[in-house]
Every structure is written in structure tokens, then in C-alpha cells.
């Protein structure tokens, strides 16, 4: 195992809402190793974004965050706003689904990259500008010199996402968190952006956390996967093990529900995602799990190792062997 750059331990995030406290993240443990591409999947509302927004210190003040997030040895939970500003963009960057909201409409593209560079590095204007153009080239923007002088509205959606990546990697962070970076893009453009992310990761050794609901995207680019359900990390492992022999019933259900070539009937996961204002006791998946037993309603299962996989299911050892899907 290579060096861990990001270690999340027992992370909890609670929002005060008009209907009462909502615990969106309920004890997440997760590691990101140097240079790896970690995929994070899970259904809508499972706490993917909130977990990493908490790590970035980007949640609203009314969110209560506890636990530990350490980045290359530095503790981020409880860090001052000033410390977080110095860390964001330098050690840890995050990009989002909608690239437009991340760009300033009235500033030239090149200036926005230069600004990010100069906020963390001692560079002259000329040096920063030169580096900005290099970065545009790295993320695959043709004629980067001319493009640097343009404004965001002159760029297409795919081009804007490239710019956002250029800004995020400008100071060569240790970890890049990409939250659904291709969801709003067409598939042919999505393929381009995934390639850019892989290229950046290889070239700079950046660790990447890719949050997505698309298991195909995970299968294409990830080294390891974390599966989230109801604010918990329910399974994690290498992509080979997770796709070949998923152990957690939710992961199994997720993979089985995907349409595959051929006309066999699809297998949905029964029931509905839990209401996080009042999540089911014990293993939150018990309301939908075909293997649920009384024991599942007791304590929240912790991650337990099975070879290349860690699974949070009290019955993991008793479950029937998983059928091979492909």
C-alpha cells in the first residue's frame, strides 16, 4: 500500500433543518492513497458530496461536523478559516458538476488561472500568465494563448470543465476531488473530460476522488471504489474485486439493476431510499435488503475485511455466494 494522503475517520455531519436534525454523514472512514483514483458511488442523498464538502471546509456554518480528516498529516476538521484558505487550492482542490458556477463571468480565463497560481505561489504576473497557458494546454484547450484572453461565455460546457480542472490543478494539489464532473456533459464530451482527469493524475501523481452515480465511469477510470448508503461507507475495495464479487447486498443490488446487453428483465432494488431525518436503525439498508434478519436492526455494521474488499454487513459471511454478473 502506498502512502495515504487523505484519511477520514468517523466523520459525522449533521444539519439543523426545520424538520429537525438531519445526520447526512454518519461515521465515514475512508482513505485516499497518493496517486490513486478513488471512485465514490451511492444513490442521491447518500452523503457523497457532504462528506467531501466537510473535508474542504465548505459546508454552511450551521452544519455540525465531527471526526477527523487529515491531509498529509494536517488536521482539517476544526482548522481556522485562514488555514483552510491556505490549504484549498494548494493541497486539496474540488471541482463540481456545473463548471459555470466555478468561473467568474467577468474575468478572462487566463487571469482566473493566474490568480489561483499567485494566491499560493510567489510568481510574477508574466510567470503566472505563462504557466496559465501551459495549464490550458495540459487540459487540452487548443490555441491556449488566444483562449487565455477569452471569457467563460465564449467556451462550451466541456471546455469550461477543462478550465475548471486547470484552475484546480494549478498549484499541483495532493488531492483533487471531482464531484460529478461529467454528469452535465454529453457522453462524447464526458469521455474527453475523463481522459483529461486521467492524464492529469498520471502526469502529476495527483490523487483523485471521483464522485459519480455512474458505475460505468467508475469501471473505466477508478483504481478503488467506495460505496455509500445512507451516510455510511458500506463497501470499499479494488475495482476488480468490487465488480467481480461484490459482497454487500446493496452493491450486489446496484450492479444487478443495470441494463446489460440482451433482453433479460431488469432487477430493481425494492423499496425506496431512506428518509435521512429518520433513518432505519442498525443497517440502514435493512428495509430493502433481501437478506435482512433481526440482527441487522441492532447495531450499525462496521467495515470488515474480506480479502480485497471491506464490507459493512453483519451477515456478510452467511450470504449465499454471489453470482457472477458478466
Amino acid at each position, binding site marked *: 500500500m502506498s502512502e495515504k494522503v487523505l484519511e477520514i475517520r468517523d466523520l459525522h455531519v449533521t444539519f439543523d433543518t426545520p424538520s429537525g436534525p438531519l445526520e447526512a454523514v454518519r461515521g465515514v472512514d475512508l482513505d485516499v492513497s497518493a496517486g490513486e483514483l478513488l471512485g465514490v458511488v451511492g444513490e442521491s442523498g447518500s452523503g457523497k458530496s457532504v462528506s467531501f464538502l466537510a473535508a474542504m471546509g465548505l459546508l454552511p456554518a450551521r452544519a455540525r461536523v465531527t471526526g477527523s480528516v487529515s491531509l498529509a498529516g494536517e488536521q482539517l476538521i476544526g482548522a481556522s478559516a485562514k488555514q483552510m484558505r491556505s490549504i484549498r487550492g494548494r493541497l486539496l482542490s474540488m471541482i463540481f458538476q456545473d463548471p459555470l458556477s466555478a468561473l467568474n463571468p467577468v474575468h478572462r480565463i487566463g487571469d482566473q488561472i493566474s490568480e489561483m497560481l499567485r494566491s499560493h505561489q510567489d510568481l510574477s504576473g508574466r510567470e503566472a500568465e505563462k504557466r496559465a497557458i501551459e495549464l490550458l494546454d495540459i487540459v487540452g484547450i487548443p490555441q491556449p494563448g488566444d483562449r487565455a484572453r477569452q471569457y467563460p461565455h465564449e467556451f*462550451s*460546457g466541456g471546455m469550461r470543465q477543462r478550465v475548471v480542472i486547470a484552475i484546480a490543478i494549478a498549484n499541483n494539489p495532493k488531492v483533487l476531488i471531482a464531484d460529478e464532473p461529467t454528469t452535465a456533459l454529453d457522453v462524447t464530451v464526458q*469521455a474527453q473530460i475523463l481522459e483529461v482527469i486521467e492524464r492529469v493524475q498520471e502526469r502529476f501523481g495527483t490523487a483523485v476522488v471521483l464522485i459519480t452515480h455512474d458505475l460505468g465511469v467508475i469501471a473505466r477510470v477508478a483504481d478503488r471504489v467506495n460505496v455509500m448508503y445512507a451516510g455510511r461507507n458500506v463497501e470499499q475495495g479494488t475495482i476488480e474485486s468490487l465488480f467481480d464479487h461484490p459482497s454487500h447486498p446493496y452493491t450486489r443490488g446496484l450492479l444487478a439493476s443495470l441494463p446489460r446487453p440482451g433482453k433479460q428483465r431488469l432487477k430493481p432494488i425494492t423499496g425506496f431510499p431512506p428518509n435521512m431525518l429518520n433513518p432505519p436503525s442498525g443497517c440502514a439498508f435493512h428495509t430493502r435488503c433481501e437478506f435482512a434478519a433481526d440482527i441487522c436492526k441492532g447495531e450499525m455494521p462496521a467495515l470488515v475485511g474480506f480479502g480485497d474488499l471491506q464490507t459493512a454487513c453483519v451477515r456478510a459471511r452467511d450470504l449465499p455466494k454471489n453470482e457472477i454478473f458478466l
Partner: protein
Amino acid sequence: MSDELLKVTNLVKNFELRVNNGARRKKRIVQAVTNVSFSVEKGQTLGLVGESGSGKTTVGRCILRLIEPTSGSVEFEGHDLGSLKFEEMRALRRKMQIVFQDPFASLDPKMTIGASISEPMVVQGVPGDHSDKVIELLELVGLSADHAQRFPHEFSGGQRQRIGVARALALNPALIVLDEPVSALDVSIQAGVVNLFEDLQSRLGMSYIFIAHDLSVVQHIADRVAVMYLGKIVEIGDQEAVYATPTHPYTKALLSAVPLPDPKTERARNRIMLEGDVPSPVNPPSGCRFRTRCWKAQDVCGQEEPMLTVRPSGQMSACHFPES
């Protein structure tokens, strides 16, 4: 041709766009749909795929006459919809329904589910009390009778989409246009809604036009597939033929870009990377509209528009240098 339910011929829809360009106001024409022709048989599903802005929704809206086509004809059960009088159109209109992508926006938050489902019957002047029909419809889509008294906010995305489907079924349509009906849903929930569409079709025999970005879902549900690019159909044919042996370069690139949930195939695949983005429909490229991104483009592609031509594997595609 007694099995043909819908026949669309040379459908064109241009939108006028007014742009403020300093002091001068200019008019621009968005060529959203250009010369689109296809037919849908009874009990069959036509998948309509293509990237954002390719004109899929506009085709669906023209068929239902939610917008007036610029030109071309739409025949439904042998009647040319363009030449019908208002009352005749109203009678046919009930046989065609549409279900939209967003299960949250498509229901009135202040109306009970029962009222939402019976609304089309009220609007169409179907006589009598509709409560039995509402219960029947709710059960048909996998919900229960007591849901009728509840309001949309009490339902999850998948449930709301089922309610939208129940509403569309109220008037026993022969054709339902499903515009991205599962895109907003989690994968594990999508599967149940897709199964519902299949079950309803085998029980009630209606036809679907299934519009989607997700090519794997379309492969699963469609009998025939039409691939659109910048307002035109570039390839159309049986689902098996189009997916197994795509003949238009765009179809081939699109299929190769779809991420498959299998690491081994994904990593072994030879992917075609298209460069750039889709050009603007205000000024589409001359000749073949795909030529600015096509790796096979030659001079002729800019000069002559390729026509849809039957290929050896049975489908039709519009390309001067088709893949074989």
C-alpha cells in the same frame, strides 16, 4: 402497412431566436429539427438518442402538436394531424400522451395525486366519477389506492414518475412519448420504472417513443433506434443492428463513448475520441452536419448532404463513407 401507428415525414422545426446585438436586434433561425422521417408500429418502441440539443424533445413536441412544426407531416392512425380540425385533433390527441423527465416539476404540488391522475379525463370531458379508474391506474403502476389522497411532496422520485405514467395512461393512449423518463432517477430505481414500461406495453399494447441519453437503457427497451445529430437522423434501424454494427461514424463514436459497468471490457476497449463539441444549430455545417468532428471527413462531405441509405446489416445511415 396496417401495423403502422405513426408516420413522420420530412419534419422540420425552426425556432426564431431574437438576439440583442448592441443596438441592432437580429433574428436568427435555430434549425432544431431538419427533415426527420420515421415510423412507429403498433406495440413497438422506438428509441430516440443523441446528444443534448440534437432535437429529440422537439420531435416529441411536434408529434403531439405541443408546438407547430415548420413543415412536414405527422400521420397518426392514418390521419394527417396538420389537416385536422380542432375537434378532430382533440379526439386524436387523447390517444397520444407524453411523460417528461422531471418527476418533480410535472405534478401540481397543490393537487392530490388522485386529482392529478384524473385531470386529463376531466379536461377531455370523460363523463362520470373517475375514482375507480384512478385506483385502477394507481395499481397498474405499482402504487396503492390510498395514495390517491396524498400530495406529490410525499413521494420519492421513482414514485412520482409512476404517478406521471398513471396520468398518461388515463385516456388509454396508443402512443406515449417518454422524454428522458428515468434520467432523474437513481439506477436502482430506474430498473423498476423500465420494467413498468415493459409490463404495461405487453399488457396494453401501446407504442412508445423513448427519448434518452442513456444508450444502455435504450438498448434494453427499444425495438428500433434512431440516432440524431444536430437536428437530423443520422442512423435508424433495428436496435440489434444499430448496436452491433453501427454504420454511421457518429453512432460508432457515441457507442464507444458510453462507459460500461465492467472494468475488464472498459479497459480493453478501443475508444473513438471525438474532438470538440457539437456545433451550433444556428449555423450548422454544410453537407454532412457531423463533418466538423468526423475523422473520416473528405471534401465531398462539406459539399453534398449524405442521404439515408440502407446498409448490409439492415439499418439506414446517412454517410458518404459508412463503417462496414
